[in-house]
């Protein structure tokens, strides 16, 4: 049964390609001429990452010997352990870059929130697919599922890790949608985020989006009350954002938002990261400045260039060709994962695979969006590319689960 020939090697290959691009970028960002300005522990990042990539290859391949049933049954236990780890992090955690997301275990920093991602996906999927009659259409089931996601989210917010919290929150509509939430309601849940995003630029865009989304909901669902509620929610969002921008938010918070909509307003302060990131990518041009030749990277104009701004390193040194390849590789990975989900007969496998794809995608969009100033700067790593051992390991584990379920999809369907 463990026929490795049946492993989805294209996904494995895409994963390995991303890890390789990441290693090159991390090497350049920490070992290049820039290393002169970096403390030793950051210069060690490359070798640490290399170890984690090697470990992860072993993990992904080794994991294929498990049967999906084993972790399916253990998912609630994982979830419980995960929550305990989260609490421990809150109590005994180490703070890095303002977020208290790590616990020190034997000289190794563990980011429990990364593990929690897997645990939450597995447990919530397990819950939502445990019985045939469970559907997100039923408000009770939906509520429990939402709660299962929200509890770790609260811990993550308490840890001050806003980026990861967003990823968890984004899981809610995806998982509910997959579990039978009607299209219209799903759109409705997502709509405030989109309207908020547009309103920050211009309230008129937010207003137009409100009308269009309500129209779409009516068109999809034909439910006047839902349409009306959506319209009201949209209006409240637009008005609320405007009020927040003018009256409620503190000046330093407004400065952050201005830095996003107009970075030139404060180029050396709040706008610095955005301008430097755009400059790094833009100055890369078609072919890039060459490996370890990027002036923005090597002269330390980029903040956190081995994690949150790693795509700038790729963009600057390998140009449009390099960054384009990175984006396309990700797209390939997302589409293939969704295809895998489509091939599953088992709803658990479907839901987990879709959720994993969604988590990767949200990471990807927020990370690249921040670096290219499509989104405000939210510190979040790029899966498989950014430096970070826990993240790499858990992301690989998530992928390993997807590959494992795919490899075992024939015998797995028996458990239906």
């Amino acid at each position: 049964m463990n026929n490795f020939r049946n492993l989805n090697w294209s996904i494995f290959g895409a994963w390995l390609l991303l890890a390789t691009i990441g290693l090159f970028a991390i090497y350049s960002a920490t070992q290049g001429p820039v290393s002169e300005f970096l403390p030793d522990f950051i210069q060690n990042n490359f070798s640490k990452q290399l170890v984690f990539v090697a470990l992860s290859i072993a993990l992904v391949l080794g994991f294929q010997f498990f049967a999906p049933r084993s972790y399916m049954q253990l998912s609630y236990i994982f979830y419980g352990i995960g929550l305990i780890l989260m609490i421990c992090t809150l109590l005994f955690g180490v703070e890095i870059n303002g977020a208290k997301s790590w616990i020190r275990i034997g000289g190794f920093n563990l980011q429990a929130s990364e593990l929690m991602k897997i645990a939450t996906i597995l447990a919530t999927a397990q819950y939502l697919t445990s019985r045939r009659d469970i559907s997100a259409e039923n408000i009770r089931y939906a509520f429990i599922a939402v709660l299962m996601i929200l509890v770790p989210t609260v811990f993550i917010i308490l840890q001050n890790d806003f980026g990861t919290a967003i990823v968890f929150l984004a899981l809610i509509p995806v998982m509910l949608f997959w579990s039978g939430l009607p299209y219209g309601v799903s759109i409705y849940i997502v709509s405030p985020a989109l309207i908020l995003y547009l309103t920050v630029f211009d309230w008129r865009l937010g207003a137009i989006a409100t009308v269009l989304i309500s129209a779409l909901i009516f068109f999809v669902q034909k439910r006047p009350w839902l349409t009306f509620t959506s319209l009201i929610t949209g209006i409240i969002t637009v008005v609320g954002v405007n009020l927040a921008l003018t009256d409620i938010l503190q000046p330093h918070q407004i400065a952050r938002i201005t830095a996003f909509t107009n970075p030139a307003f404060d180029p050396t302060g709040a706008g610095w990261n955005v301008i430097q990131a755009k400059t790094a990518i833009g100055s890369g041009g078609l072919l890039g400045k060459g490996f370890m030749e990027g002036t923005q990277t090597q002269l330390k104009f980029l903040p956190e260039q081995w994690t949150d701004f790693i795509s700038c390193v790729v963009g600057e040194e390998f140009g449009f060709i390099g960054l384009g390849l990175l984006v396309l590789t990700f797209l390939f990975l997302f589409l293939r994962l969704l295809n895998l989900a489509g091939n599953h007969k088992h709803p658990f496998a479907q839901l987990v695979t879709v959720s994993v794809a969604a988590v990767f995608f949200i990471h990807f969009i927020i990370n690249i969006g921040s670096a290219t100033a499509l989104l405000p700067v939210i510190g979040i790593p790029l899966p498989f590319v950014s430096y970070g051992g826990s993240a790499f390991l858990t992301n690989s584990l998530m992928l390993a689960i997807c590959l494992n379920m795919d490899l075992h999809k024939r015998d797995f369907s028996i458990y239906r």
Partner: protein
Amino acid sequence: MNNASKRTRTSIIALQAIMVMLCLVVLGRIFYLQIIQYDIYDELGDKNSIRQEYVEPARGLIYDRNGKLLVDNQPIYSITITPVNFEDKNIPLLSRLLEEPDSLINSLVQDAKRYSRFRTSKLISDIDFKAFSLIQENLWQLPGIGHQIDSKRNYPSSITGSHIFGYLREASETDYREEKSIRLGDKIGKSGLELIYQNNLKGELGVNYLKVNALGQSLGKFSDQKNTKPPVQGDNLITTIDADLQEFAETLMKGKSGGVVAMNPNTGEILALVSSPEYEVKKLAGRIDKEYWQFINSDSTRPLYNRAISSRQPPGSTFKPLMGIIGLHLGIVTPETEIYNSGYYIRGRPYKDLADPGLYNMESAIANSSNTYFLTVMDKIATSGQLNAWSKLAKDFGLGIPNNIDLPSANRGILPDSTYLDQRFGKRKWGLGDVLNFGIGQGLVSASPLQIAQMTSSIVNGGYKIEPHLLRAIENAEGKIEQKSSKIEKIDWVKEEYLSTVKKGMRRNVLEGSGRFYAAIPDIEVSGKTGTAQNPFGFSHGWYTSYAPSENPEIVVTVFLENAGFASISAVPVASLIIEKYLKGQVDRQWLVNYVLNFEPKEDNSEN
């Protein structure tokens, strides 16, 4: 296909469509940044990491007429600041490293911010090497702070020359607002030759490009930049100053107050120029010693005041030779005309004449400084309505007009004519009484020592107008030497016979007149004329203008001593020694040097 799997299919396609769309947005964004806006960001990237840096050229050197180095440059250590990268919270650290009070550093930082937030300027210069090394070591803690080695003026010769060289000071706010090439912290000439020849001396700024990181640390030169430009050294000045003579004159003038001008009468080249008291131009090089600066600005002896060219005093009897020339030209007297001195010249009131009573012709009137003779001449000029003609003729000798010497703040003096007197007293409110004493160089007539030297030169060089100047030649960075030409022009109305009469009188002044005690030098024929500027506030000011050799003179020396009383015992020996030194190369009369060095003025207002 059942409902559930249909929904799954649709959902997957919907999700895939969303992902493809958003990835296309991202790709489009990247394409926009990297391909369409490439030029903008490429330039931004360069601006970020490549910093323009000016390379200061070496300021031009100053030499004496014989190629002796008088002024050069010496390296000093400076700290620079780029305010935009600097955080005010680092001020205490910075002041601790520099061992300066917080308040000083803070005010310097604020000055730099006012100058420009983005341009790098000098924060503090001429710090000692220890502080400089400390700053260098701690640069990583001090973003926005840089260091630089530049130079200050150094004066290797033993002359002081403060009133010749002048001093440099950091450009003021108005300076750099007016002149684009000046930056805050740049030193520019503020007086003397440094000011007049600032544009020659300063050279051309070089431009370098440096790679810098986000903390502003320099990572070495960025060579392949087409705009890189090496600095061009400033032009060297070769002056007309004779360093040995200058040094000697300065020694003689120590402790006295006044001015000395030694000049080549044939060319206008200034051989030595001393104004005493001097200030120490050395103390104004590098970082300004604030206390010293305040002292020289406020001291009652006014050391910054250049008495040799800026003071304006009645020339007294030194004016008489010129009066003689004008009297001859206007036909009021001939060389043979004799005028009787009774001890007084009476015109409305008695004018005392210290010359022995008796008959005087022009020669003996100059030799013995008879007032009666020249009062009579002036009387006749004024009463025959020739006051303005007199004034015009005298101006040909450089009095009452600007002399265009290449030093700042030279005084043009006063040589009155009717227009001037009308302005001064009101139309028809002045009379003969106000004019008469012009004839003996008193009253409103006034001149600087330089002007008297210039007048004397024109008398003794055969009647040529000369332009007094300090610059002999300019040597540019390539070593090309350009001689400075000065205009020499015959005064057309001056006849040789006028001059020879007057010169004989001046020779006799040394032999038998008031100059006879100290003026004569063994083996050298010297001529001269003493004078006294009456000073209502104290001791008279003494004048002496002299030249040698009497035939074909090579040097004119004019000495003006404030509050020194008798010129014959104060100013005369100074001039005499300078002439001896110049013509013989050494001074044999050491006793006279000692006399001058220990001179104490004795009051006597009576001499003319």
